[in-house]
């Protein structure tokens, strides 16, 4: 890779580092602001996880070069995330009943 290419990459890494720091500050600030919606912690959870997801995406896309990675890697990850989703959310639906009188 040429020096110019690399310089471009390096500038990007610096930028992402700053974004990540900002994200961290936001996460902690959000905690102290207490996004409690109707006495439930759901609001705080939503904000906290969203910021974490954005930070995670920045790391994955830029430091791990996922943005420029090949299709096969994308497909493997998509499959993994889908399977993970099953594991995380289906047990929560355990008591789901479709008929209201049960």
């Amino acid at each position, binding site marked *: 890779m040429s020096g110019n290419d690399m310089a471009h990459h390096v500038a990007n890494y610096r930028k992402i580092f700053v974004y990540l720091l900002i994200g961290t500050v936001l996460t902690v600030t959000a905690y102290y602001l207490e996004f409690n919606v109707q006495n439930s912690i759901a609001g705080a959870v939503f904000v906290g996880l969203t910021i974490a997801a954005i930070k995670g995406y920045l790391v994955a896309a830029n430091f791990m070069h996922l943005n420029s990675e090949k299709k*096969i890697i994308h497909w493997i990850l998509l499959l993994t995330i889908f*399977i993970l989703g*099953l594991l995380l959310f289906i047990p929560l*639906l355990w008591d*789901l009943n479709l008929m209201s009188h049960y």
Partner: protein
Amino acid sequence: MSDSHHEESFWRKYIFSIDHKTIGIQYGITALLFLFFGFSLMMVMRWQLAFPDQAVPIFGGLIKWLADLNGFASDGNLPSDLYNVFGAMHGTIMIFLGVVPLVVGAFGNYIVPLQIGAPDMAFPKLNMASYWVYFIGGVIMLVSFFLPGGAANSGWTSYPPLSNIATTGQTYWLIGMVFLITSSLLGSINIIVTIIQLRVPGLTWMRLPFFVWSQFVTSFLLVLAFPPLEAAGILQLMDRVFDTSFFLPSGLVVGGEVLDVSGGGSPLLWQHLFWFLAHPEVYVLILPGMGVIAEIIANNTRKPIWGYKSLVYSVVFLGFMSFLVWAHHMFMTGMGQGMSIFFQTTTMIISVPSVIILSCFMLSLWGGSIRFNTPMLFALGWIPMFGIGGLTGLPLGLSTPDIHLHDTYYVIGHFHYIVAPGTIFAIFAGIYYWFPKMTGKRLDEMLGKIHFFFSFIFMNGIFWPMLIQGLAGVSRRLADGGESYAHAQETLHLNEFMSYSAWLLAVAQIPFIINIIRTLLRKKDAVPDPNPWRATTIEWTDTSSPPMGHGNFEKVPTVYRGPYEYSVPGDSADFTPQTKK
């Protein structure tokens, strides 16, 4: 490419080899020994079931010695505590130390690189590491038999709270599982990268032998499904060693006293994490076997396998669906109706690709020039046996009949039909089929046919009555075989019949063992036939004297056609190798 390599030391060549063929054989021998050991545990259990509380003949002394060591009372009989140990370890050993290492570690390792024209697996050193980690896991499991309290005894499913408070053997089981899971993960990553990256020119995805497809899907199941069980294992280790309460609910009473733990845990959590792996795991147990059957049917009907595309799409769909059905093992845990509907539906859906695969195999026989050699006999026997196994799964996958059948002998009959005259027959078929590729010598046909015939009879003798007992309501995991239950009395007499079938099944393996030893000791022909079955897939096209040398192919093969071009019109021979222009 023949390597004019340095002379390798004995250790480098046979013990710490990085050659996939040597590693495959290491896995094979180790796994077969574990299969034999797991089978032996069952033979002792069947004595207890047929003749409750009577001293075990011949091995009574050994049983008493082990029972004493574990702290159980015995006068040569199998006490119920030890029965539970044997039951839990029979399942664990057969699945994790026997079948999977055989079908993936042995067959996968040995055959996949050869069938895609590769010089070895993508990561040879990682391959070697995978075997030794498996070996250590196996040693840990074996060592646990000698602990006070014996080895794990809470079923291979290790449900808490029972497994949480079980004896030390359970901790060893958990640690052993961590090693076995690690070995599996490393091995399956290796297989996936090998198949994706090392296919030779011309070997497109839809020209792959079905065996390779089955290994590919199996490896994905292992990579994605095993880690949640590893997580669960870590959590249970924390519970047992650091007194956490991941799986212990608040206020649990044991032996009349409330347990002094923090509580707040969930036994259901274990079940979710366990079955999230264990359901895909059962597909790991059968898919490679299906791959073997496909190879052998195509080869011995002298025509292409029927419905190659359907087979490939089915096996991929099956692998995907296998992640969506796990809670059909949990219908009795109080799940809501919505969940029950969801999992029954997905379970019914997943039976469809299985039926397609079975149908393709059956249709492949139509109009074929069938050669009834030993591998083919096992493949033909596999078909109806897997059929019975699959069909008996249907009432279990529907929650209403499952109320009656859950945790009965019906379940044991169902899954044994799939693994025993299912996968194990596929394993036997594969051994007879690929033996000449590994050694340059064919196993004796007469002994092979005797092996097949009697194995087929006695397998059915063991497992068919289980379906009957299960329908009568006899529960599984009862050391007295149901004796103390009124509803079991009518079917108790079947216990003796099943036990004799099990012992005779063991006797039926003697021709197999003799066959292997005699063939190995026999001298190789001066010029061994590199393709005695007249097969089309790449592993048979190499003309070098079997087994192949380090690096496999003298010249990198090029592939010009599909994997099953038998009886091509206009061709002089009744088979056309993949590498022929």
